[in-house]
């Protein structure tokens, strides 16, 4: 991948991370608030709706507005609501009339999809990074123990790695969630517990290749204990490939989280994740395609960016594997 691709990936990750962190201060609507169950559900992207601002600053939405003597009437679904002019901001329809826009439309509950996507990035990225971090930690632990101890401990740990690796990840994750219940915490733990294997193999390989080097022998002769040997002398050189593995793992994890959410085993509603947004939009696909479609693009963009970044970093570390 070219340098332009790398920069693009970096910029995309930056924008995603920024909007995820700064979500509450971006002036978005509340992602979980159902503002108006009659007017707002399933608005197409870029739709503007009529609304009037009241004296207290709140908005009232309407499919249709008409002014009658001393009041305005708002049509909401089958009914007309009457609001006296004195309740309106500025006291006249003109001064109170607003036309708020829903850039990416709304879902079946009238919730703002843009806000849900951004807040969903929060949840999805949080899960992705925490689970990948946990996987790296676990993998490093297992790999270091196996690589340093050798013998039957190594054999046992590596067989365990093979065993976990041979269960299809989604099935394993599904089984775990089915057994342990469903929450944000279990999602992170389950995803971390099912994706440490590559890191373990990587760390073990690195340690095996370094174990007999002179500087390690010297450290050992100087009386360094195993933990110190691992932490100070061996792991630093595994750090870079491990980071690349971690970045690629984040993308994978986001994909699996989406699948779990889609199966109804991820983060419980109403909190938005990209996966459960797609799941909610699934049954309204033909009438409101944007509900299920847009979060998919968010997932693709994120995973592509992480992948490009990881590949570029890997290439920089080891130019011979460039492809």
């Amino acid at each position: 991948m070219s340098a332009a691709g790398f920069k693009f990936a970096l910029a995309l990750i930056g924008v995603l991370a920024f909007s995820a962190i700064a979500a509450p201060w971006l002036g978005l609507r509340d992602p979980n608030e159902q503002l108006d169950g009659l007017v707002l559900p399933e608005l197409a992207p870029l739709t503007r709706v009529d609304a009037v601002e009241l004296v207290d600053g709140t908005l009232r939405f309407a499919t249709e507005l008409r002014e009658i003597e001393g009041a305005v009437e708002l049509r909401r679904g089958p009914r007309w609501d009457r609001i006296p002019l004195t309740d309106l901001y500025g006291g006249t329809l003109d001064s109170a009339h607003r036309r708020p826009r829903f850039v990416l439309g709304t879902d079946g509950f009238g919730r703002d999809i843009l806000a849900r996507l951004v807040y969903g990035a929060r949840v999805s990225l949080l899960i992705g990074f925490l689970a990948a971090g946990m996987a790296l930690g676990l993998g490093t632990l297992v790999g270091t123990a196996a690589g340093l101890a050798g013998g039957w401990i190594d054999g046992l740990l590596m067989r365990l790695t093979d065993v976990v690796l041979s269960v299809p990840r989604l099935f394993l994750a599904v089984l775990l969630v089915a057994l342990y219940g469903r929450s944000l915490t279990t999602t992170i733990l389950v995803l971390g517990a099912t994706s440490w294997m590559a890191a373990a193999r990587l760390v073990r390989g690195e340690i095996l290749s370094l174990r007999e080097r002179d500087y390690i022998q010297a450290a050992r002769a100087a009386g360094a204990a195993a933990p110190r040997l691992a932490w100070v002398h061996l792991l630093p050189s595994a750090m870079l490939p491990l980071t690349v593995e971690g970045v690629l793992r984040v993308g994978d994890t986001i994909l699996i989280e989406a699948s779990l959410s889609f199966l109804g085993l991820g983060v419980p509603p109403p909190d938005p994740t990209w996966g459960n947004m797609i799941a909610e939009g699934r049954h309204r696909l033909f009438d409101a395609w944007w509900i299920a479609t847009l979060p998919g693009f968010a997932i693709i963009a994120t995973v592509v960016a992480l992948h490009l970044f990881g590949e570029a970093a890997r290439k920089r570390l080891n130019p011979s594997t460039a492809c």
Partner: protein
Amino acid sequence: MIRYFLRRLLVAVPLMFGVATLVFILLETAPGTPVDQILGDRQVPPEVRERIERAYGFDRPAPERYVRWLGAVFLQGELGWSHSRARPVRRALAEALPPTLLLAGTAMGFFLVFGIAFGAWSAARRGRWQERLITLLSLAAYAMPAFWLGLMAIFLFSYKLPIFPASSMHGIDFDTMSAAGRLFDLIRHLILPAVVLGAASAAAMTRFVHAGMLDALAEPFILAARGRGVSERRLLWGHALRRAILPVISLAGLSLPVLVSGSLVVEVVFGWPGMGRLTYDAILAQDTSVVLATTLLATLFVVLGNLFADLALAWADPRVRLQDGGGR
């Protein structure tokens, strides 16, 4: 070759054993007891609870239950009772297996053919826009959740352009169709889910073959062949592709977990009556014995797939079987 096969088998059997052990440990450490599962929300006196425990052997110590369970699963194929489908788990699995095999097999055929074709073609067009397009598309396909791609496929090809049916495995008038009509009907239902299921693997295969082709094209034997006046076309599709295609066998084996995991969501999206759908229904009904059985079966697929890929590679490439202790 036979010795190599036995060696591989010797790795595969303990692996399945280990997976079963892992699953047993997970079950044991999960909150709640199996009796709670059976009873659900019903309130019963403690004697009844005890009777159930005794009837199912839950009162025995864990090691004894472990041995009994292993024996039941591996020796008798006894996987318990599915309360959501009201039949033995074994029967539910037997019904769901053929559709899944059909779907996964078709997906595999799809991704092999298209992955190799696209990979080779984009390598042939190296440095041009076609290569960039294929690279970009394969990257996007790799990053797509399978269920989302399935929804998009349904929206585009079942709704906007109604070419393929959106759901299920047969049309409603399947029973009255002629044999040819049935086959056609099945194929029509099969295409969308198989393509969606195979898409991620096709993307991986494309990237893989592409890279392999570029490596092969840089080899001296290509230069030599070019010097002898071999046409560019033959150079690509004959010489370089033959070189690049060998590792595809192991990649096909490695893509099995992806296909099996993918079938879980793809079958749900397309209402395909296979193992994925069975698992999903079982999750909703909290039918753990089914989830357990499908997990074990999915793992068996993966282990067998890897075994098969190893064997195929050893058959195709003598270096592998000789290197891996075959000489002893």
